C-alpha cells in the first residue's frame, strides 16, 4: 500500500517537474551549472574506475585463455566487448547512482528541511521544476558522453596492462579492438545510459523533495535514493537487454 502511494507520489512529482520553466534564462543558467556539477565533477571517478577495470578485464581474459591455440587478439576483443556492452554503461551508472544520486537527494532534502523549498513555493515558483529539471536534463546530456569516455579509457587501460605485462602484443590487441565491431552495441548502451541517468536523477530528486523532518531524514532519503535507483537500474538493464539485443 505504502509502495503504491510512493509510486503515485513520484508520478505526480514528475508531472510538476516536467512543466514549462517559468523563466527560461534562469533554467538555462541552472542547467549549465548542473552540467558542471553532475558531469565535469564525475569525470575523475569515471576515468579512474574505467582505467583499472579495463586493465583487469584484459588480464582476466588473458589468464582464462588456457588453450595456447587461442589467438591473443581475443584479449583486446574481449576487453572492448565488456566495456562497450556492460561496464561503461551499467557499472558506471551504478557508481554514478552512488555519487550523483546521494548528492542530489541530500541537496534537495536539506532545502526541504530548512524550508528553502517552502520559500520558493511562497514566491509562486514551481519548486519541483526549478530544482529537479536542470539536474535531470544535465545528466541526460552528460551521461552518454561519460559512457564514451569510459569506453576509451577502459580499452586504453586494457591495452596498457596487457602490453606491459606481455600477455598480448600491441598489434594483436589493436587488431582485437577493431575486430567484428558492431556499432549497434553503442546505440544499445547509450539508450541504457539515458534511461539510467533518468532513474538516478529523478529518483534522487523525488526522495530529496519529499523529505519530512531534519537531517536524519535527509540521510535516510539519500540512502534510499542510492539503493532504490541501483535496484531499478539492474532491473531495467535486464528488461532493456531483452528488448534491444
Amino acid at each position: 500500500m505504502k509502495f503504491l502511494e510512493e509510486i503515485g507520489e513520484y508520478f505526480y512529482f514528475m508531472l510538476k517537474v516536467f512543466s514549462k520553466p517559468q523563466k527560461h534564462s534562469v533554467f538555462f543558467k541552472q542547467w549549465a551549472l548542473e552540467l558542471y556539477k553532475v558531469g565535469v565533477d564525475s569525470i575523475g571517478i569515471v576515468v579512474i574506475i574505467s582505467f583499472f577495470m579495463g586493465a583487469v578485464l584484459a588480464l582476466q581474459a588473458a589468464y582464462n585463455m588456457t588453450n595456447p591455440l587461442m589467438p591473443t587478439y581475443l584479449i583486446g576483443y574481449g576487453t572492448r566487448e565488456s566495456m562497450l556492452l556492460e561496464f561503461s554503461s551499467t557499472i558506471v551508472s551504478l557508481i554514478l547512482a552512488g555519487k550523483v544520486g546521494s548528492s542530489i537527494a541530500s541537496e534537495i532534502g536539506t532545502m526541504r528541511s530548512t524550508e528553502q523549498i517552502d520559500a520558493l513555493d511562497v514566491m509562486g515558483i514551481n519548486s519541483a521544476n526549478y530544482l529537479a529539471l536542470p539536474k535531470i536534463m544535465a545528466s541526460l546530456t552528460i551521461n552518454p558522453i561519460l559512457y564514451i569516455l569510459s569506453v576509451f579509457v577502459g580499452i586504453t587501460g586494457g591495452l596498457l596492462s596487457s602490453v606491459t605485462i606481455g600477455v598480448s602484443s600491441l598489434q594483436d590487441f589493436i587488431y582485437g579492438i577493431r575486430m567484428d565491431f558492431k556499432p549497434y552495441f553503442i546505440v544499445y548502451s547509450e539508450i541504457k545510459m539515458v534511461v539510467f541517468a533518468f532513474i538516478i536523477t529523478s529518483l534522487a530528486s523525488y526522495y530529496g523533495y519529499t523529505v519530512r523532518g531534519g537531517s536524519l531524514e535527509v540521510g535516510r532519503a539519500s540512502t534510499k535514493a542510492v539503493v532504490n535507483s541501483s535496484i531499478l537500474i539492474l532491473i531495467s538493464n535486464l528488461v532493456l537487454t531483452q528488448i534491444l539485443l
Partner: protein
Amino acid sequence: MITIDNIHKSFDDHHVLKGISFEFETGKTNLIIGQSGSGKTVLLKSIVGLHTIDKGDILYDNRSWQEMTQDQRIELRTEMGMVFQGSALFDNMTVEENIGFPMLMYSKESTKAKQKRVAECIDRVNLTGSEDLYPSEISGGMQKRVAIARAIVMKPEYLFCDEPNSGLDPKTAIVIDKLIHEITKEYNITTIINTHDMNSVLQIGENILYLDKGEVGWKGDKSHIFNSENESLNEFVFASDLYQKLKEIKED
C-alpha cells in the same frame, strides 16, 4: 486585510487547527501567539497556501483563496513576502542574490532598476557591505534581516513572519521587531507575525490572536492582554517570573 474563516487542518488523524476565524488588519502588526505546538506555524502556512486546508476560507482583501484558479494564486503569491522560522535563505546564493531572487524570477523591470531596488532593500535592513557574503558567513540576526529584505523586495501587500526573532538575543530581537513594525507602517501592508516572545507582544502587539491547542483562545491587543480573565492566556503570559512580578506590582 486578510480574513480567515473557520479554518480546519488535520494531518492524518491529528486535528491541528480546529475552526479558526480572525481578521488581520492592514497597516498593523498582527500577532499569532501561543505555546510551542499550538499550531502557529501550521496556521501561517495554511494562510499562505503551503498547507491545503480541509475546511474554511481565506480572504485576501475579499479575494477568496478557495475560489481562485491556480494562475490567480500564483499571481497573488507575488503580493506576498514571507520570513521563515529558520530564515530559509538559499545557501548557494550570496546575500545580494538571495534578495534579488524574486525580482530575477518575476520582475519585468530593467536590470538597472532591479539592482537599484535590491540596493534599496539592503540599505533598508542595514546590510550594506555584506552583499557578497554567503548565508553561512553571516550571523543569525543578519540572516533574519536578509530574509526580511528578500520578503519585501517585490513590495508585497502581505508580509508573513514565522518567529522572526527566535534564536536571537533580546537586543537583536527588538531590532528585528522594530524593523518589521516600521516596514508595516511605511508600506501600509498587512503583516502577520508568529511569536511566543512576550517582549514582542508588548512591543508590536497591535492585534493579537492567541492560539490555544488549535483553537482561538483569545483576541485583543497588547493593552488588554494583562487584564484578561482567560486562564490559559494568563498562564502563557505570566509564564516567566519577570512578568509574574510585573503583575503583582501592577495589582498593588
